[in-house]
């Protein structure tokens, strides 16, 4: 079974802190994605990556950056967390082509 894991299920940080959200997939997938999910807004794409060291901005990249040093790991970085970044963050991967995305369990981040 494909497995996408995220480093934390729940995280509480203070305004201004640097926050790292880690995502690891174990099926050698080429593509990885970071979404945020807010009530009534659905899943919105923050960043995605189609290859190691490659990254592309999604629809809402402001305030975020990413890192993909190894194929299996895709990190989301909040350089200076703000309260409006309180949200559920979902990581996903897929092997490319016309194939399904596999989602991680999500990290619920609260910024105080």
């Amino acid at each position: 079974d494909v497995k996408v894991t995220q480093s934390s299920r729940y995280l509480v940080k203070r305004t201004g802190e640097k926050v790292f959200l880690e995502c690891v997939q174990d099926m050698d997938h080429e593509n990885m994605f970071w979404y945020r999910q807010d009530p009534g807004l659905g899943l919105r794409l923050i960043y995605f990556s189609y290859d190691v060291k490659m990254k592309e901005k999604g629809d809402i990249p402001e305030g975020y950056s990413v890192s993909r040093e190894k194929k299996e790991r895709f990190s989301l970085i909040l350089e200076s967390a703000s309260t409006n970044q309180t949200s559920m963050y979902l990581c996903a991967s897929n092997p490319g082509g016309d194939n399904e995305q596999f989602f991680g369990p999500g990290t619920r981040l609260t910024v105080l």
Partner: protein
Amino acid sequence: QQPVQSPQAVILREGEDAVINCSSSKALYSVHWYRQKHGEAPVFLMILLKGGEQKGHDKISASFNEKKQQSSLYLTASQLSYSGTYFCGTESRSGNTPLVFGKGTRLSVIA
């Protein structure tokens, strides 16, 4: 631009049928459907591709009208386990383009 899903929410009794729609203002190459139960990750249901190919679970039924840029998910003889939020994700072209997800349709099935 996000596809538009309708209805936003629906309540069914066990055994009833429902249709969830997904509509885009752009020409579509594919439509993906996912279901998310409360507190869990979204789970894949189906992919519908331009030209008629479908991939997904045998028990799920869906259609894709390329001309109207619309897709519908058909849930028949609903069960309690069908409850959750359904998302459609759309691609406007083939290749490595990310999905754009709708806002979701919340489905509640009651006994």
